[in-house]
């Protein structure tokens, strides 16, 4: 007996799969399963996070429903994964946020954005908020750079703290030795596996979505979203360096590095989430964790909002819309930061951790 019903079901499936093993070439889940004969809660959570939901093992399984063995690995592991986010959340008191995730994220986003607009308006007269500001330092007419840095730095630090605490619990639970450290080789391997989404490919043909044809572009959209996010993050870092090291103030001209990075990233953050959303809506419901609609869509929407407000700000920054758009964009970024540890964003972190563990296991097995 396990802690939850979904873990009981995952255990049942892993017992079926372990006596079958036909899927062992498809992804990391099955080889990891084969290293075990019995499955603790931690083992099952580990396997759940190794799954990239490509759907191949469902389409290829001779026992998927309507067969009486009723084997549906992607869906079961998706539910287990989602439940584990709450189980490992830090602080524990906030784990309930996952249950109403979609709602919380949209409320946070709306509130943060409203707060920034109202804040700007209260701090300045209408002329500043709706004025046309150009040239270096234009953004800081609305909010001093130091205030901005303090606010976002604090939000980011909180997110990092919460994520680190959660991952620590996860790392212990999935059977890594207490105090055990991942070796650099395993980390490097995991970075590569995560970076190329190695296991989101149905064993090589692609990913399954609405039917048994591997035509899904989810890997592409996921890449756009993920690398879009990284590019935007890089843009912010470069901007910060410009500010403190070179004393150059934003906004920068369109050809300058932070803007180029931000623009490319912004495009990724707009196109990627749209693609992911469309794929989710088309997906065979047999493969989906329907209960988590809010969480998935809330996160996709949040990322999209960040991308679109960023691009809008970029293209309209020399007009009177700059003030309100800056407020919206900062609000979206702020909301993203503080909800990070309590939304779909965490899947990337846990997945990466599981991949490190997997790389470690493979190294010690060979």
């Amino acid at each position, binding site marked *: 007996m396990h802690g939850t019903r979904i873990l009981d079901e995952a255990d049942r499936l892993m017992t079926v799969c372990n*006596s079958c093993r*036909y899927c062992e*070439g498809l992804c990391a889940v099955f080889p990891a399963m084969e290293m075990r004969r019995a499955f603790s809660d931690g083992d099952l959570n580990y396997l759940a996070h190794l799954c990239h939901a490509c759907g191949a093992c469902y389409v*290829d*399984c001779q026992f998927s429903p309507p*067969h009486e*063995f009723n084997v549906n690995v992607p869906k079961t592991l998706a539910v287990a994964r989602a439940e584990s986010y709450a189980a490992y959340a830090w602080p524990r008191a906030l784990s309930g946020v996952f249950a109403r995730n979609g709602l919380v994220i949209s409320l946070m986003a709306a509130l943060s954005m409203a707060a920034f607009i109202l804040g700007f308006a209260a701090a300045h007269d209408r002329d500043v908020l709706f004025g046309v500001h150009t040239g270096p330092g234009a953004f800081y007419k609305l909010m001093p750079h130091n205030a901005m840095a303090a606010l976002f730095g604090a939000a980011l630090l909180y997110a990092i703290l919460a994520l680190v605490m959660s991952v620590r619990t996860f790392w212990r639970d999935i059977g890594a030795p207490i105090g055990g450290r991942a070796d650099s080789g395993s980390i490097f391997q995991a970075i590569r596996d995560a970076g190329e989404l190695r296991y989101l490919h149905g064993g090589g043909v692609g990913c399954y979505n609405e039917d048994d044809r591997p035509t899904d572009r989810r890997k592409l959209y996921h890449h756009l979203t993920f690398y879009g996010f990284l590019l935007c993050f890089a843009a912010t870092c470069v901007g910060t360096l410009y500010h403190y090291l070179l004393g150059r103030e934003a906004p920068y001209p369109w050809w300058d590095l932070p803007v180029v990075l931000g623009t490319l990233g912004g495009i990724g953050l707009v196109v990627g989430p749209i693609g992911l959303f469309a794929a989710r809506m088309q997906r065979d419901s047999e493969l989906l964790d329907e209960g988590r609609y809010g969480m998935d869509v809330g996160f996709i929407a949040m990322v999209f909002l960040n991308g679109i407000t960023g691009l809008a700000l970029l293209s309209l920054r020399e007009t009177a819309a700059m003030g309100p758009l800056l407020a919206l964009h900062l609000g979206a970024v702020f909301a993203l930061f503080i909800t990070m540890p309590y939304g779909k964003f965490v899947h990337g972190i846990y997945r990466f951790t599981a991949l490190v563990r997997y790389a470690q296991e493979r190294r010690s097995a060979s």
Partner: protein
Amino acid sequence: MSKKYDVLVIGGGNAALCAAIAARRGGASVVVLEGAPKFYRGGNTRHTRNMRCAHDAATEILTGPYTEEEFWKDLLLVTGGQTDEELARHMIRESKDILNWIVEQGVRWQPSLGGTLSLGRTNSFFLGGGRAMLNALYLTAEQLGVEIHYDAEVTDLVIEDGMFLAARLKRPIDGANEIRATSLVAAAGGFEANIEWLKEYWGDAADNFLIRGTPYNRGSILKMLLAKGVQDVGDPTQCHAVAIDARAPKFDGGIITRHDSVVFGIVVNKHAQRFYDEGEDIWPKRYAIWGRLVAAQPDQIAYIIFDSTVVTSFMPTLFPPIAGQTVAELAGKLDLDPAALEKTVADFNAAVRPGIFDHTILDDCRTEGITPPKTHWARRIETPPYLAYPVRPGITFTYLGTRVTREARMLMKDGKPSANMFAAGEIMAGNVLGKGYAAGMGMTIGSVFGRIAGREAAKHARN
């Protein structure tokens, strides 16, 4: 109303799809009639995992060469010579090319993982298993323009003087309840799911058989063909049967109900008596004989008995072993006479001679002074908990079939080849397999003869 095609393929498994694809590539219009609903398409092929092909050198997926001659020797060994040598050698030669041809049809092989089975040299494994390979074949067939119908059981064949004219359907397709074609490829599997038919040869024992694969292989096409003048081949009592868990479903339990723990323990019948040398031979032979052995026992049930020291020596099982702290307690749970089982285990333990255990070779751990002996891997059963798996005969597929030529053309009872009827796969496996089995040959027979049948059927249709 009826429709006419160049080639009609009956069945929906590996043999049928290979035939359909080859016929379509040969320029014919092709229709496939699969009796099962879409999810269950592909009969027993859904449950397969690998295929045995000859090859001259190691590849990405195979660890070493497996020559035609070696394949032939293996086939000779398992069939005890009951095989059509010309046909078998032809198949083996063609199997070399199939390794690549099947990939061209979209099927993917799994790189050798050094994993579960010791078949890395002789057999190629489908990435994702048999259903994945079927999905690929169906996709290719559809893209080529093969017309495919599910729930399309053929209930009658119109054949005149060895010439196929039309097939009648249980359910009309596009308003037609009959389909005509210039050539026929019969690839509708064996009759293992037809218990009534099995009973003709096995008696009431067949009621206790479990069918490992599809419930849709009822042999109806085979029966019609034999009734309409096609020559039969093979012994109807010969089939591929293994001992599988007695708790498995009646049909379609697939691969995961098997047990390969026999060599680690002893096997007793419902009277708690041993009946065969559990240490006679190594895999895969030991695997394939136990279905028949259990079928010959009262009520077709047996129990593999072992102890806690060996549970991690074999593949994890779907159903957990039944456990008891004492032999008597275990017997009680199995509904066996406790005294009888205790005596059997005690006698066995007393007869075990010391040796060095190695389950990968025929080792020197054996018994002395009991019948039947256990000639290898004999170790005392003495560490509780005592464990058991109940097993029944699990039928994989049957060997009675239609006789064919090298061109996969059916031979009629008068010895003449049929004008336009071809057969592939399980329905003609008996030409090659008089008895016995070597892992992966079902797929070889299906792919090789499927491709030939399709090609020849298209050729006939074009003439």
